[in-house]
């Protein structure tokens, strides 16, 4: 495999780039990646996010994202936006300040919410804020 340029958290068309990355490259990214399907089931979960959360990747893959993996995002600020985008068949690319409860500590993060109509996976990208 040729060396891939590592995409930045705020790169354009990040969702497409992530789709093309294999697991090893996804794990090497400096930010957390959660990819889930239209039913909200987690299909991709990278090592960075696994490390943030303290949960092994195989504990998370196959689980519903907003009820089991990231219940803290199950509100109108995050989950609702994915639902609205899907309902209106619109793309979603929004970056918000949020607080995750990683290992029960409040951690300031930037979340990038990505959805492309017709794409197999939607993504929440997690970057720690200073």
């Amino acid at each position, binding site marked *: 495999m040729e060396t891939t340029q590592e995409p930045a958290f705020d790169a354009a068309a990040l969702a497409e780039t992530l789709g093309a990355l294999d697991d090893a490259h996804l794990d090497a990214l400096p930010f957390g990646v959660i990819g889930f399907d239209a039913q909200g089931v987690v299909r991709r979960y990278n090592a960075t996010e696994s490390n943030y959360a303290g949960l092994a990747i195989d504990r998370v893959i196959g689980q519903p994202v907003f009820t089991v993996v990231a219940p*803290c995002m199950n*509100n*109108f600020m995050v989950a609702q936006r994915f639902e609205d985008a899907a309902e209106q068949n619109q793309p979603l690319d929004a970056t918000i300040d949020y607080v995750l409860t990683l290992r029960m500590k409040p951690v300031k993060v930037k979340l990038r919410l990505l959805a492309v109509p017709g794409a197999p996976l939607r993504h929440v990208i997690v970057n720690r804020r200073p």
Partner: protein
Amino acid sequence: MTHTAEEFEALIQFLYLAPVGLVQIAPDGQIILINPISAQLLMPLSRDGGLENLFTALEGVAPDLAHRAGAFAPDYGMVCEEMKIQIKAGVPGKSGAQVLSLSLLKLDRQRMMAVLRDVTQEIQRDLLLRQNEAWLNAILTGITDYAIARLDRDGRVDDWNESIGHLTGLDRDAVVGQPYSIFYPDDAITPERTADRLREAEASGWSMDECWRTRADGSRFWGSAIIAPLRHRTEPAGPVPLDDGAQGGPAFCLVIRDITEKRDASEKFRQAATCDHLTGIANRRAFFEAAELELERWRRAPRPLALILFDADNFKRINDTHGHPVGDAVLRHLATTLAGTFRQVDVVARVGGEEFAVLLPSTDLPSALAVAERVRRKIAATCVEVNGERIAYTVSGGVALMDAGMAGLDDLLKRADAALYGAKAAGRNCIESALAA
């Protein structure tokens, strides 16, 4: 060792999945440990995108929390149990109201544990239950002290009954032919509310309320009143003949009961749930409940409905310069002034840190502006005395009127808030009104 790591991970996941919010805080509210459901519930309330302090996160909706926690002297115990916090009013038919329940347990001098739950649905069920209970209270409990009156279809007392004189001390001439609002203190009911209750009784079979009432000799009692229609419409739905009941004659039955003793017994409990801990006036949740009810009436029979938001000017500076006890005294003074200025039928509540709301049924914009201005002047002309110090402060106010273009309470609040912002921008110590959209 891997065994331990796995156990740790399972424990972490157990906390991730706990269906209630759990937060461990320091005495000043600083968040030490927090689980995901807490973040789910609290993040929409955060004003700065952070979650560092629980009291700060909840300040907009439970402004007296830090005070409650600070005032709790024992080293261990419940600071508050299942305190209901109204998050938003919701828009009828669109988005629902939301209510959180908060319990705060002091573990020791260094730590408190908060439990948060979304109890919106339980609250709705509970409201129904309470209505049923109030109804049962009204009809079943010790009927020794009651007055019964027949009302015509406009709510005027139709006939004399000795029980009326016995309970209220009024005589026949003062009562017969008068609207039933004579059984209320002047400031506890409006002509529109009088009509509302008849309509509600007609629609649901009964309407009841409880409030302070005055006897002819000036003494007062806590009275429950229930109105029930005498004839139930059994005719199939269709146009009602125009002359129906126009001849007069009794259309409703009104029963008033003195339940002062019963109220005394439940008052402490009632106050804890509906009153702001610091100021003693209605809290945010009680305000939303009363305002929603008034808005429902407004929808059925539109009439002027005004909202005033008051905000103590430069309150942070008062706190910073003179300390929190003085700030608290200022808030208490403002609350007392408001409670002493408005009518019993108005809803006066503390809805935020230094923000107070007053809902005025059957009040137009000029009248609301006038009374808001009276409050402003009264505050500007008095000083609060705390420990020998005399503190002068001012308030700004925003006034808005409900209109058909607004979806609900949230919109009305937003408009009053915009007016309040205008008053602040205009230099404070003034009242502004919102222009109709």
